[in-house]
């Protein structure tokens, strides 16, 4: 296992301290995260690995402000979101964070061009030239006026990546972005993704099961039973 890269505290883009999270189930509460500490610097990329149920996705969701922790401190780009309300966390997602999911989660009612522009326009950072560059780099120029349901899985994931990067987020959070694609397509999409993330200078935290993919990032964080192993 490669060592976890610990960033200089003054340059932290994402910082988690003693983060705990549990979910209520029919059989009582289940602790998913049991005190996680981690840091990520701008431009740094980190793979989040671990067996199923180890809390990878939960950690990613907390970092994105999609959910709130039971305990601990989460700081994103200098903002402590641990106690932040719904509106503040929504503002953070809109302006600072970019999310890429395994399920693509495109907006089915908008065409590819509108999907690509959507988050950038929400963040108030829409740059048509950069979007065109991205569309070209992702091989989407020919299908800008198609709707998500008319695309293949690989194409849909490329649109999802393009949508995230078009907004130039400072922090990119990805949850197994190529998990739904075959190996060859997944490798091609991942290569593009990493190249473009590094081009924007964003920090990247990516959940993956693949050791091979994890090896292509700056560092790796292994979760086990809700703790950093």
């Amino acid at each position: 296992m490669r060592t976890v890269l610990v960033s200089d505290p003054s340059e932290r883009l994402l910082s988690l301290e003693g983060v705990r999270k549990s979910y209520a189930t029919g059989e009582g509460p289940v602790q998913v995260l049991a005190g996680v500490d981690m840091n990520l610097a701008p431009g740094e990329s980190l793979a989040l690995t671990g067996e199923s149920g180890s809390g990878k996705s939960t950690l990613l969701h907390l970092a994105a402000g999609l959910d709130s922790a039971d305990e601990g401190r989460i700081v994103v780009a200098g903002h402590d979101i641990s106690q932040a309300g719904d509106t503040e966390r929504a503002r953070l997602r809109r302006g600072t964070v970019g999310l890429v999911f395994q399920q693509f989660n495109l907006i089915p009612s908008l065409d590819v061009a509108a999907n690509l522009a959507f988050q950038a326009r929400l963040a108030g950072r829409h740059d048509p030239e950069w979007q065109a560059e991205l569309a070209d780099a992702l091989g989407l120029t020919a299908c800008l006026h198609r709707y998500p349901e008319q695309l293949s899985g690989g194409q849909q994931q490329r649109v999802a990546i393009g949508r995230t990067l078009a907004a130039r987020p400072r922090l990119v959070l990805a949850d197994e972005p190529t998990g739904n694609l075959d190996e060859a397509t997944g490798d091609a999409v991942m290569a593009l993704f990493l190249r473009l993330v590094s081009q924007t200078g964003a920090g990247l935290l990516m959940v993956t099961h693949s050791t091979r993919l994890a090896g292509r990032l700056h560092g790796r964080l292994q979760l086990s039973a809700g703790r950093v192993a």
Partner: protein
Amino acid sequence: MRVALAALLSHWRRSPLQLAMLLLGLALATALWSGVQAINAEARASYAEAAATLGQDRLARITAQGPIPQETYVDLRRAGWRVSPVIEGRVRIDERRSLRLIGIEPLTLPAPAQQVEFGEGDALLPFLTAPGLIFAAPETLARMEGADLPPLREAQGIPPGTGLIDIGQAQRLLRMEGLVSHLLLDPDAPRPGELPEGLRLVPPDSESDVARLTDSFHLNLTAFGLLSFAVGLFIVHSAIGLAFEQRRPMFRTLRALGVTARTLTGLLLAELVLFALLAGVAGLALGYLVAALLLPDVAATLRGLYGAEVPGTLAFRPGWAAAGLGIALLGTLVSASQSLWRVAHLPLLAPAQPRAWAVASERALLRQAAAAAGLLILAGALLLWGRGVVAAFVLLAALLLGAALLLPVLLAGVLRLAQRAARGPIAQWFWADTRQQLPGLSLALMALLLALAANIGVGTMVSSFRLTFTGWLDQRLAFELYLSAPDQVTADRIADWLEPRAEAVLPIVRAETEVLGQPAQLYGMADHATYRENWPLLAEEPGVWDRLAGGDWALVNEQLARRERLAPGDPIRLPGWEGRIAAIYSDYGNPSAQVILGIDRFFALHPEAERRRYGIRVAPARAEALAEELRAAFDLPDETLIDQASLKGFSLQVFERTFAVTAALNVLTLGVAGLAMFASLMVLSGMRLPQLAPVWAMGLTKARLARLEMLRTLLLASGTLVAALPLGLALAWVLLAVVNVQAFGWRLPMHVFPLDWLTLGALALGAAALAAAVPVRRLARLRPADLLRVFANER
């Protein structure tokens, strides 16, 4: 097969709300339809009973133009005619109650007319001797409690609101001593010769006049019931369609595991039949309740408008229940036919994901637009060339259905334009997403459109009718007092007495006649300013009143003019008279043809006509005092003298009751449409998460998403309301200018009431907001974990 059925039914266990909506929609549709049918069945049974009273459906009658003197009856008996006298009339009990009395002579009554079993004479003696005995139906007995009448005794088979009594007692109670209404002819006895002049033989009639008169009224009710049923079926269609789409992967799995297409379709059909029967029974119970609640108003309307007696209580008829279950079953199968066809033709190897149910293809919209255009063309053709009440209702159905099908096409177009014009990303997403929701909501919106249009249309018709009717009553009821003297001698004495006390005393004289081969009422009209200034003329020749007074011209009512396509200036012929039409006048509420001649010409044709009825002009402030003096001077019973205000009040009361039923059905239909909206929004809300979660993840709060969801519902409801306005007005126009003319023979001018639209608009938006409130609240209160499941692919 049992395993497959259990798998299919497991869907409903997991979606109880969907099942509840399906059953509720079907139950409501059945309830409104069968409720109306129960009312119609009850009324028709009463008409049949009335037609069979005293065997009138089997016995010929001898009648005259007015009451027959008792001596004529005696002369006929002496001449060998086996006839039995009957007297009919209404006796007023108090302000709110009256009783139709039929006086008979039990000893001469022909066998088929024996209505009451007099037993071993224990009833006959009290029946024949003072104070007499009245036989009546149980509900009539209950209604007459405390009335100042001879003793009442229960008897079956007598129409409601009617009492059977000895003719002598009836003559006394009706103040018609020495008179009979008609004579029943014994069918087994030979006829000794020709009838004396003035008497007429009327053959037996199996259908009462009332049944014929009320046909249009019942057709109106049926049409409303059908509309409510159609609106209810929108919910059913929506729920079934969605359930089928959601179970599509299950269908494929079952097929892949060896269940044949035929078995699968059969199982689904069995499931639907089970639901239809369950909801049908609930619908029948609800329908019975609706009918029981509405029947008193309907009965009052029929009594007021047509003099038809219908009991205010409802009987349970097995035929009605069977028909109700049948229509529930038929409605379910019609609603499910498209889905069943798809299942039967499901390709086994097609992708198993649910079809993009919420995405309407352009082709589907085009098909819908084409169907709508076809229906609207049919409506146009019926407007131009259709004849009769049925054609008028088919025109209404084609117009409503065509417009409903066109609604999603129009809304999709407007949303497309809005999306193009949108600037910000949220606005752009909002319009695009609304467009995507449209197919899922379109059935509910169509139901809302129909309910709103029916509301606007019927509301406009009723308000136009009320406005016209009130103005017309002011014109027609121009006399301050109306007198019906008990006999000619009293009438003459009263006329002389009134001469110095009133501004004018004008006779109202009437005879039966025949015009263009149909029976008609003939009136004689005095030449007086009261008529010249007030009579409601629709079309006229110049100098109409002078022409009428001259004797060679006549006035005809609108019904007759429309039926026979008559216009002012056209020739017209009556028995013994030939002339031209001077004018056409409005005559609302009267189903018969009517002709008016100048009073001199009238008496030249009908010298026998009695002058017992008068219209009295007097200063309005003096009217009440004069009436009191008149009653005191001649010992007149209350009903002989009616003042204008009471008559107007009574007419307006009848009018309001007539439309009370319509208003109730209107509100119920709107309620069903609101429920359809609620059902669709609730069902869709469960499917919305994958569409909303990404937008939430990208930085829109749940509260904002909830607000946008509410705004979307309100915008769609507003769009539907805007579309409902012209449709409602078109509906009102068809009701006023086509249905009314075909059903009743008169046409009403249309008035618009924008304030009513504002009220309805607020009500509709309120209903839409209420329907959206639960799903929106649910969205605003979603836990992040619920939304995160979308990303974790755990749904």
